[in-house]
C-alpha cells in the first residue's frame, strides 16, 4: 500500500505550495506585529479566551452564523461549502482510521481513499460510504447555490455582488470543478469496482447501465486526474486569492479574542485582517455611496483588495463616509474603518511641527463647575444647539465650565479621519490637558464626533464623558428639569457616530418620548442611514453629499412627523438642507418645552 498514483501529483504540489506559503505569510505577519500585540497573544493563550476563540472559529469560520442572520440562503451556501467540506475531510479521516486501523496514511491517501480502496482492494464500510455521499451532496448543493448566485444574487438578499479580479476567477473556477469532478470520479470508481453510497453508488449504477465498461475504464484515470488538478490549482491559487480568507479568518479570530485590534498605524498584523476578507460583497449593499451615487469601486471589499495587492489609491481610501454601515454587516468582523484610517495615515500623515504651536498656553474657557461643556466646532456653527444647552443648564441650576464657548481647539477627529494622526494627537493632548486642569468630573458634549474621540482617544482619568442626550435624559429622570409633554409627532435620526459609533440609541429616544410621540423612520438604530456630510469623506462633492442627505430626508419626511430630531450638529445641517419638516437638535426641542 504505497498510497501513490501519478494523478496525485498536482494535488500534492498544490497542497505543498499552499501550506508553505501559509506558514511563511503567517509567521512573517506575526513576527512583524508590535511587541505589545505579540505579548497580548502570549498572555492570552492559557486563558479562557482561547476556548472562546475556538468556539467562534466553529461558529463563524465553519457554520457562518453571522451570514445566516443576514440571509438564510446565503448562510446555507457558505456553511454548506465550508462546514460540508470540513466534514468531508474530517469524516474521511475517520473513515481511513476505521477501515485501516491506526496507522500512517499520507495526505493523498486520505483525500483519494476511494481510489486506493478500489484499486488496492482496501476495506470500505457502508456507513461511511453513505455518510460521505451525504456530505458530498451537501457541498454540491452549496456549489449549485453559488452558481445560482452568479445569475440571481437577489435570491440571497444581495442586490450587488463583488466584481472579482482574474486571480479570483481562476480559483473560483477550480473550486467549482472540485466537487462535481469528485462526484464523477467516485461514481465511475463505484461503477467499475462496486461500493459507493446512495449518491456515487447510485450514479455509478446508472453509468454501469448506460455506458460501456470500456469507456468507463478509459475515463477512470483521467477523471481522477481532473479532480486532483482542480484541487491542486485551487490550493496553489488560494494564498493569492480571496480564498486566503478560509485559513486567515482563524488566526484573526484568535487575535481579536486576545484583544489585538487594528490601530492608528498600519501594522503587519493588519495582513491578518485584509487577507481575512472573503470578498463576499455583503458590504456593498449597505453603502450609500453605491446605492445613492452609484460609486462602485470604493467599498470596503475593494479597499481591502487594493490594499492587499498594494494598489491602493488615495481616491479610493478617502472616498468613504466611515458611517460604519458596512462594518456592522461584515461577517468576518474586520475593523474596516480603522484599517481605512491607518491607510490614510500611511498616505497622508505629514506632521507639521509648528502649525499647532499656537495652542501653547491658550485657554479661552470660562465659568466654573464640576460639569464641563464642550460645544465642538460644529456646534459653534449651529449655535441654536449651544443656546439651547445654555437654557437647559440654567434650568437645571448646573454650574458649568464652558470649555470652548469663546473659541477652542478641535477634538482632533477630522484631522485623524484625514490621516494626519500625529497632528490630531497634538490637539487631543491639548484638550485633555485643558479638561484635567479645570478639575471637572463630567464633560458633556453635543457633538457625537467629539464624544467618540474623548471616549476612545483621550486619557481622562476620573472624568466621565457623556453626550448631551445622556445628560438631558439624566436631568429629566432625576426631575432636575421639567418638560411639557404634548402630542407632537417627532421622528429621530440616529447619527452614525452616536449610534453605531458610541452605541447610544435609547437615551435620545427616551428624551423625545418625554416630549411627545416618537415615530421611527424605515432605517433606524443600527441600520440608520448616513446624512452624507461625514467629515471622513474628502472625495465626493457637496452636491453628492446633498443627494445622500435627500435620501435620508425622504425617509424622515415619510414618517409624517412634524419635527425631525437628531443629536449631531453635522447631521442637523445636512438634513435641514434636504428635509421639508423642520430639523432640530435634541437640545432645542427640550429647551423649547422647559
Amino acid at each position, binding site marked *: 500500500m504505497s498510497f501513490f498514483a501519478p494523478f496525485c501529483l498536482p494535488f500534492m504540489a498544490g497542497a505543498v505550495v499552499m501550506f508553505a506559503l501559509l506558514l511563511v505569510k503567517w509567521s512573517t505577519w506575526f513576527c512583524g506585529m508590535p511587541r505589545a500585540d505579540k505579548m497580548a497573544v502570549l498572555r492570552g493563550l492559557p486563558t479562557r479566551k482561547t476556548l472562546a476563540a475556538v468556539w467562534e472559529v466553529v461558529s463563524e469560520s465553519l457554520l457562518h452564523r453571522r451570514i445566516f442572520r443576514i440571509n438564510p440562503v446565503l448562510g446555507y451556501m457558505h456553511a454548506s461549502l465550508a462546514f460540508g467540506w470540513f466534514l468531508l475531510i474530517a469524516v474521511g479521516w475517520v473513515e481511513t482510521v476505521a477501515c485501516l486501523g491506526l496507522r500512517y496514511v499520507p495526505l493523498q491517501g486520505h483525500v483519494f481513499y476511494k481510489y486506493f480502496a478500489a484499486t488496492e482492494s482496501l476495506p470500505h464500510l457502508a456507513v461511511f460510504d453513505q455518510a460521505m455521499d451525504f456530505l458530498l451532496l451537501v457541498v454540491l448543493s452549496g456549489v449549485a447555490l453559488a452558481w445560482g448566485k452568479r445569475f440571481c444574487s437577489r435570491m440571497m438578499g444581495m442586490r450587488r455582488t463583488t466584481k472579482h479580479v482574474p486571480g479570483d476567477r481562476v480559483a473560483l473556477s477550480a473550486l467549482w470543478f472540485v466537487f462535481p469532478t469528485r462526484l464523477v470520479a467516485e461514481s465511475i470508481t463505484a461503477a467499475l469496482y462496486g461500493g459507493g453510497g446512495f449518491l456515487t453508488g447510485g450514479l455509478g449504477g446508472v453509468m454501469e447501465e448506460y455506458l460501456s465498461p470500456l469507456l468507463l475504464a478509459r475515463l477512470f484515470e483521467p477523471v481522477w486526474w481532473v479532480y486532483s488538478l482542480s484541487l491542486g490549482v485551487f490550493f496553489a491559487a488560494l494564498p493569492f486569492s480571496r480564498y486566503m480568507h478560509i485559513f486567515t479568518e482563524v488566526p484573526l479570530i484568535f487575535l481579536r479574542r486576545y484583544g489585538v485590534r487594528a490601530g492608528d498605524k498600519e501594522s503587519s498584523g493588519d495582513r491578518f485582517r485584509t487577507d481575512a476578507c472573503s470578498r463576499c460583497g455583503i458590504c456593498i449593499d449597505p453603502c450609500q455611496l453605491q446605492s445613492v451615487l452609484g460609486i462602485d469601486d470604493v467599498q470596503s471589499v475593494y479597499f481591502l483588495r487594493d490594499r492587499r495587492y498594494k494598489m491602493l489609491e488615495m481616491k479610493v481610501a478617502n472616498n468613504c463616509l466611515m458611517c460604519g454601515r458596512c462594518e456592522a454587516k461584515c461577517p468576518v468582523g474586520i475593523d474596516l474603518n480603522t484599517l481605512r484610517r491607518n491607510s490614510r495615515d500611511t498616505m497622508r500623515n505629514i506632521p507639521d511641527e509648528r502649525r499647532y504651536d499656537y495652542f501653547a498656553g491658550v485657554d479661552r474657557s470660562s465659568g466654573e463647575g464640576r460639569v464641563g461643556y464642550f460645544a465642538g466646532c460644529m456646534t*459653534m*456653527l*449651529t*449655535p*441654536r444647539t449651544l*443656546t439651547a444647552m445654555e437654557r437647559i443648564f440654567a434650568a437645571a441650576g448646573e454650574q458649568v465650565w464652558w470649555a470652548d*464657548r*469663546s*473659541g477652542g481647539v478641535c477634538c482632533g477627529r477630522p484631522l485623524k479621519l484625514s490621516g494626519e494622526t500625529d497632528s490630531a494627537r497634538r490637539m487631543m493632548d491639548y484638550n485633555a490637558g485643558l479638561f484635567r486642569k479645570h478639575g471637572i468630573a463630567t464633560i458633556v458634549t453635543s457633538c457625537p464626533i467629539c464624544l467618540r474621540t474623548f471616549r476612545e482617544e483621550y486619557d481622562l482619568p476620573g472624568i466621565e464623558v457623556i453626550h448631551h442626550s445622556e445628560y438631558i435624559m439624566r436631568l429629566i429622570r432625576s426631575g432636575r428639569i421639567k418638560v411639557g409633554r404634548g402630542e407632537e409627532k417627532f421622528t429621530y435620526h440616529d447619527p452614525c457616530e452616536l449610534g453605531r459609533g458610541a452605541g447610544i440609541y435609547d437615551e435620545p429616544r427616551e428624551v423625545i418620548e418625554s416630549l411627545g410621540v416618537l415615530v421611527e423612520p424605515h432605517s433606524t438604530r443600527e441600520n440608520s442611514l448616513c446624512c452624507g456630510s461625514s467629515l471622513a469623506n474628502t472625495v465626493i*462633492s*457637496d*452636491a453628492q453629499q*446633498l443627494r445622500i442627505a435627500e435620501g435620508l430626508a425622504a425617509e424622515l419626511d415619510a414618517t409624517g412627523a412634524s419635527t425631525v430630531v437628531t443629536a449631531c450638529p453635522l447631521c442637523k*445641517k445636512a438634513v*435641514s*438642507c434636504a428635509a421639508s419638516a423642520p430639523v432640530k437638535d435634541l437640545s432645542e426641542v427640550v429647551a423649547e418645552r422647559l
Partner: protein
Amino acid sequence: MKRRVVIIGGGVAGMQTALRLHAAGIGSVILEKDSATGGKLRDWHKLFPTFTPASEVLDPLRRAVGAAGIEVRTGAEVVGLDGRGAVLADGTRIDGDAVVVATGFTLFDARIKEEYGYGIYDNVLTSADVERMLNEGTLSMKNGDRPRRIAFLHCVGSRDEKVCQRHCSRVCCVTGVKQAMELKERFPEADVFNFYMDIRMFGSGYEEMYREAQVRHNVHFVRGRISEAAPTIDGRIQIKAEDTLTGRPLRMSVDMLILLVGMRANDDNRRLADSASLTLAPSGFVQPADPFLHSVESGAEGIFCVGTVTAPKNVGETLAEAAAAADAVADYLKNR
C-alpha cells in the same frame, strides 16, 4: 374675440408685461398670490445706483395698471399651468390665449446659515430687514442704541455649494455697497466693514459707487468670508473671518451684522415646471428656450417667462425684459 394673456405674478415684471401688452391692444389678467401687487419691491427702500426710492418705480406702475383697467386677482396662488391658462390653488381655472410666468424669486433664508446667528442673536439682520427698517425709519440696534461698528457679509446663500446655491445672485454686491453708504449716512460715527469674496460691479454706475463708498464714505472692504458669529458678554457680536489678502485670521466685535441674502429659485418652480413641461436649470430657476434669441420664451408653446423667475436680475433689467416678453407674446398671438 378679445385676446387675453394670463400673467402669473404681480411684481414689476408682471405689471410691466401687462402694461406693454395693453399698449399693444392685448388684454391680460394678473394673478398675484399676495394681497397686493408689487412683489419684493414693496418692502424695498431705495434702488441702486441712483438711490431712487422704490416707490418711484412701483407707484407709477401700479397707477398705470389701474388706469388701464387690467384685471388683477390677488390672493390667487397658481398650482399648475399650460399654454392656455393656469389653475389656482382652489381649483379655479383661468383661461387665456398665452401665459406669462413672472413669479420672481425667493430670498435665501438666512437661518439656514445657522453659524451667522440670524434669528438667534439680536442685531443680526438681513439686507431685506435693513430695507424694511429704513422704510419704517426704525433702523437701530435692538436696544435702540446707535451702532458703532457694522459688518456686512456678502454672498449669504449665493455661490455657496454647502447650501446648494451655486449661482451668483448678482445684485447683492451693489446692494451691500448701497446699504453701507446709507448706513454711513445715518450713523456717520460708525465703522462699516464689508466682508466679500469678490465684488462684482457689473452695471452702469456701480463701480463708481463702489469707489465712492471707499473714498467718500470710508467704508472698509475686507476680502474674506465670515466663518461664524457668536454673542459676546456685553451683547455685541463677535465675528471670525480671514482677511485673505493679508492671509491672517481676524476676530472683530460688531454691533450689527448684516447678511446680504441671495436670490434663489422659488420652491414651487419644480411643481409649475412639471405641470407644463418647462425646463429648470440646475440652480432651480426656469431655463428659457435659449439665452439669446428666445430668452423670454419657455420652450413650451404659449408659455413665456420674464424677470427673476429665470435668473437673478436687477429692477432695470426686469423692466426692460418685460417689454421684450410682451413683444414676444404679441408676436405669438398674431401668428397663431
